[in-house]
């Protein structure tokens, strides 16, 4: 169940630019995957599976989003958050652009936030 849901969440994340989906929902689905795993196998197992503390995802995601937001300033001299696009069409992903990285950042933050909250609460009860 876990791998399937994770792949699905990434799929949702990637297709977000054209069809319903995106980083926010993707992150939520991924966290549901981990939470279900924790229900089934116990929290300890899930923690081992992730290896690091989910809290680290939050700063990572924020950094990714932020960098993708400032990248137009650095690389192209355009204002903050201007979309930058890789000119060629890639398989699976579709067009590659800074907005995708921004969405990946959102995905990571949402995943990190949800897992941190749920893990902390379930440890404390």
């Amino acid at each position, binding site marked *: 169940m876990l791998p399937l849901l994770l792949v699905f969440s990434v799929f949702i994340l990637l297709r977000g*630019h054209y069809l319903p*989906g995106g980083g926010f929902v993707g992150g939520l689905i991924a966290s549901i995957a981990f939470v279900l795993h924790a229900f089934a196998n116990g929290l300890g197992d899930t923690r081992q599976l992730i290896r690091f503390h989910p*809290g680290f995802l*939050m700063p990572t995601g924020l950094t990714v989003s932020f960098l993708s937001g400032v990248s137009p300033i650095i690389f192209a001299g355009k204002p*903050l958050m201007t979309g930058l696009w890789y000119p060629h069409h890639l398989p699976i992903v579709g067009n590659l652009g800074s*907005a995708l990285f*921004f969405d990946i950042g959102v995905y990571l933050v949402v995943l990190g936030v949800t897992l941190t909250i*749920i893990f902390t609460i379930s440890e404390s009860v």
Partner: protein
Amino acid sequence: MLSAILLGFIFSIFLVFAGKFFKGKLAVLSSLVPLVLFLYFLSFIPQVANGEVIRANYEWVPSLGLNLDFALDGLSLLFSLLITGIGFLVFAYTAAYLKGHDYLDRFYGYLSMFMGAMLGLVLSDNLLSMFIFWELTSISSFFLIGFNNTSEASRKSAVLALAITGSGGFLLLAGALLLGGVAGTYSISEMVGLSDSIIQSESYLWIVLLIFGAAFTKSAQFPFHFWLPGAMKAPTPVSTYLHSATMVKAGIYLLLRFTPVLGGEDIWNTTLITVGGITMFYAAVHTLFRTDLKGVLAYSTIAVLGLLVFLIGLGTEYALTAAAVYIIVHALYKATLFLVTGIIDHETGTRDVTRLAGLRKVMFPVAIAGFLAALSSAGMPPFVGFVGKDLVYESTLHMGSWAIVLTVLAIATNILVLYAGFVAGIKPFTGTLPESFSKVHLPSFLMWLPPVILAVLGLIVGIFPGLIDGPLVQPVVNAVGIDDSELHLKLWHGFNTVLGLSALTLGVGFLLYFLVKPSKAKEKGVARFDFIAPLTLVNNFGNSFRTFSNWWTRIFQNGFLRNYVSTIILFLVVLVGYSLFSDHDGIPIDFSSFSRMTYYEMIIMGIMFLAILFVVGARSRLTAVVAMGVVGYAICLMFVIYSAPDLAMTQFSIDTLTVILFVLVLSSLPKYLSISDYKMKAIDGVLSVSFGILITLIALEVLGEPVNKEVSNFYADNAYVMAKGKNVVNVILVDFRGVDTLMEISVLTIAAIGVFSLLKLRLKRDDRELKD
């Protein structure tokens, strides 16, 4: 010019990393920073003396009218030289004064941050950036006053100073915004040209009051003066630099800067004369009752600040020239006296003037500096103080019908300032040396040289007033709006009334010094009136405010989540309901425009309704949670039907997670249904039903309004063209409103950190208790 201002900040950041190299012998090197800046500003004197204004403009946030515009005119130059010149001496002095202190690097960091902020303040031509630098000086002052952070008195004084000057900063911001609104620009030099229209505008009174509030709090005018004596808890270099020579003069600077914009009106002049007059007399009288050297100096500083405000209030050519001269005079002698006091404190371990005597025998150069500074503060010829005092009397004598009152006030203040100067500069050095001080020795030259330099400078400038007249004083007078001043500084004006008054001041002052000795008894005597002192009033106000807020918090923040929720909903219902019904006669609901309900919508509605009944009637928590989940999923279905798949997906995931969370914490929650009785239930029911009705009404009313599709059309049209996405919702999230999303995920992160730390901290405490 930007780099000159930023140098202080850069050096301060640099110290964060390289601080430990500057703690030892290299500490004195940091005084190179202000020295370089001093020489840099010195090089502008010829240009500025010619009437040039040197400008440097940098765009910062142009959309808010916030630019880093700097202008160097006479007034700015005078202050810049004071800031960097005295800064240089203070930096060098500190190297010896705090030698070997653990946090010497930190101290230099604050000090250079302050220097940068102060330079920014006096050089800014943009009101908003000036406000920012103004606040930065308050903040660095807070750190410096509280530098001895192990002492409670220090911490209290720091908070008090921050509270007073910070609220002044708030007033400045309000005044600046108002002024900017009236003038249509934030550039101060442009405002000078618009002076007439600003004075005639309706908000003129408010602008003046707000600017006054800012200046009076910063420059310690009555009744806000009380933070300054408290600020003397700071190490002496700080008192010298911030609380005597520079920062407290920021208010004076502000008033001078705005004299050409706002000045010339009755309200401006009368208020300044009154407040300045009260301050100078009140503070000067207070010096009689102090035995702590720094206390004496603090009150005499306030007196001089009052005098400066008073002079700005008089507003004549004489008075403004006098103010400019007095700023220089005061910086020279008061900084000397503070530094001398610091040396005495450092070497003998006390600042109690009743115990100090005869120190000239053990630290002769320091005694010279103290002696010269005291004479300058007294206004003895040929010191620069004499030139300043002459001008003060000249200006009060020219005030027509009020001349006598104002002159008497000025004379009385000057007599008392003389007394303070003598107590601080002469008394510790005369008389016989007590046995206990016989081992006291002269400190390192780094400490005694700065005050000697300043004191000798006071003498030189007094003998040759031309040194400051053309290069410094005239440009200041020009900058505050008086062109082609005919007034030139002279030491000797011949025998006239002013000379007579000077002699009177000196005579009475000497008499006072020899007759009145500072004593503990008198200090106690005046302490009886503390209950009506502004400081006590403020403290009482603060305490009662704290009591009140405790009481208020206990009522509203009582820790029951259900009370919070019902309070929020209650207020929402009342406020929104009121505005909804007060604006209209009725709510226009156009039933004909509704689409017909389809059967599957009806089924979903039915499911929702049933689920809600379940929630309300549930006997166990689990049932209620699951039923709530059902409501959530039903709403998802509605979203799907009304073609909002993104919303549906999100809602779906959120609902799943909510249910999971509930299930997680379920076991540790108290038993259900025992918490609310029948009455509570009824109240909650009424509340929730009325809330539901309200939301429905609002939704219906929104439908009744003509829909503005401009925004949504813009997004729909441009999603693919500009952002190459087909999913409009997502494109809005990641592209058009990307900054919003960035902020939102930051907020999420903060929330998660909050939950994490709250629960983890509690866990750790539990662990500890278990161990015990």
